[in-house]
């Protein structure tokens, strides 16, 4: 134990000091947000014109979070899709099995609410596309040079 190799003691300290001068990896969310890809799974979007009310999506959901409820659309009463986002696990099986592609996926991954009842999205709310918040700077995550990871 008396023979402490100097390289084994000094090299970790040198590596720790080098990291002080690198660019930081974390971003200051919520002032800056990460840019999602094309396939990022977020909230659903519902097109009532294409919906056949067949109920396949309701049958295939693993968690039973979808229901066909009655609502009014363009003056007529019809059945539409209601999703409970408290139970949804974003597995996309419903999108995959819809025969007319009335259900799609958007990039909006921020679904926030103050109480559990407002997490149940009615058909009219689902058919409105999500708004992008203005004023938040989106940071690209695809290229590691802009996020600061380099090797010494």
């Amino acid at each position: 134990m008396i023979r402490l190799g100097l390289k084994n003691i000094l090299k970790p300290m040198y590596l720790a000091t080098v990291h002080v001068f690198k660019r930081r990896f974390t971003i200051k969310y919520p002032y800056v947000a990460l840019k999602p890809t094309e396939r990022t799974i977020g909230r659903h979007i519902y097109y009532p014109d294409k919906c056949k009310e067949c109920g396949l999506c309701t049958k295939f959901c693993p968690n039973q979070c979808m229901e066909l409820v009655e609502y009014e659309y363009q003056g007529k009463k019809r059945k539409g899709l209601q999703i409970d986002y408290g139970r949804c696990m974003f597995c996309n099986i419903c999108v995959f099995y819809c025969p007319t592609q009335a259900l799609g996926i958007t990039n909006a991954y921020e679904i926030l609410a103050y109480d559990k009842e407002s997490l149940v999205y009615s058909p009219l709310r689902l058919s409105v596309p999500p708004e992008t918040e203005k004023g938040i700077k989106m940071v690209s995550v695809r290229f590691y040079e802009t996020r600061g990871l380099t090797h010494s």
Partner: protein
Amino acid sequence: MDLIDLAIKILIFPGLAFIITILVFAVWFERKMWARVHLRIGPLHVGKYAGSLQLIADFIKFAGKETIIPSKADKLFFQTTPIIAVLVAGLSMAVIPFSENWIVFKFDLGLLFILAVYSLFPIIILLTGWASNNKYSFIGALRAVFQLLAYWVPLGLSMLGVVMISHSLNLVSIVNAQSKFWFILVQPLGFLVCFIAALAESERTPFDIPEAEGEIIWGWITEYTGINFGLFMVANYLRLYISSLIITTLFLGGWLGPRFLPPIAWVIIKSMIVLTAIIIVKTSFPRVRMDQLLRIGWRILIPLAILNVAFTLALIQLVPSIVV
């Protein structure tokens, strides 16, 4: 005049107000430096400049929480040990000189006083751990006592070389004896032993096994909540800062430096450099296990310190102009 002088020195500088300010700065600096090594951002929101008042916000949060006292704990010691710990940790600030005149208590045996204060900590820690009536606190307190006793001896022995060259135990004359060259150039081995022993006395990585979070949650501070925890944190950081001040005074030349800055600024700058070295050591090494720690303390550091004393004796015989 004397009383007003003493009052200024105790309350403002280098007393209470200075300690609070320098601790706020030192802890903020440490947290930002860790964050830099870990590739993340440290405290960010509190304070106008990048989270500089974070420690004050933390202290107010600690003061606002409920202090829980376990029902089977020893009530007298449980409630008084945090205050005793802070007072004893700040006691050795009384003899550290920041300049020729800025010293609270001029004492001819200053170095011995500092060593005596260091020997009080095992008793306080043992009382703290025993009064909590908790298994984890007990194990942590025993580990801390073993560690502090084992590293107190090399700490004292490494200061012997400095005393031999400067012929006095008074801290002011030790600094004045370094006016030709700093003692780190003449005593490299003594500096190394003193640095490692000071790290172990302040319970810092790689010697922080009394408060290792992996197995014994917080060691001897486990049962303390609220303001008691805050006071123990203050005591720990105060111990760390005073260790770095002592190393500055003994080996790095105290307040001596070029004329364009006042002497007080030089002390603060040098102690911050020592603190940076301590932080870099913390982020690069894992913890040492208990039996390996005691083996380093008793079997390696004490022979090195004695070697340092022999080397200094030879140096004084060969080059008599070193001695002031």
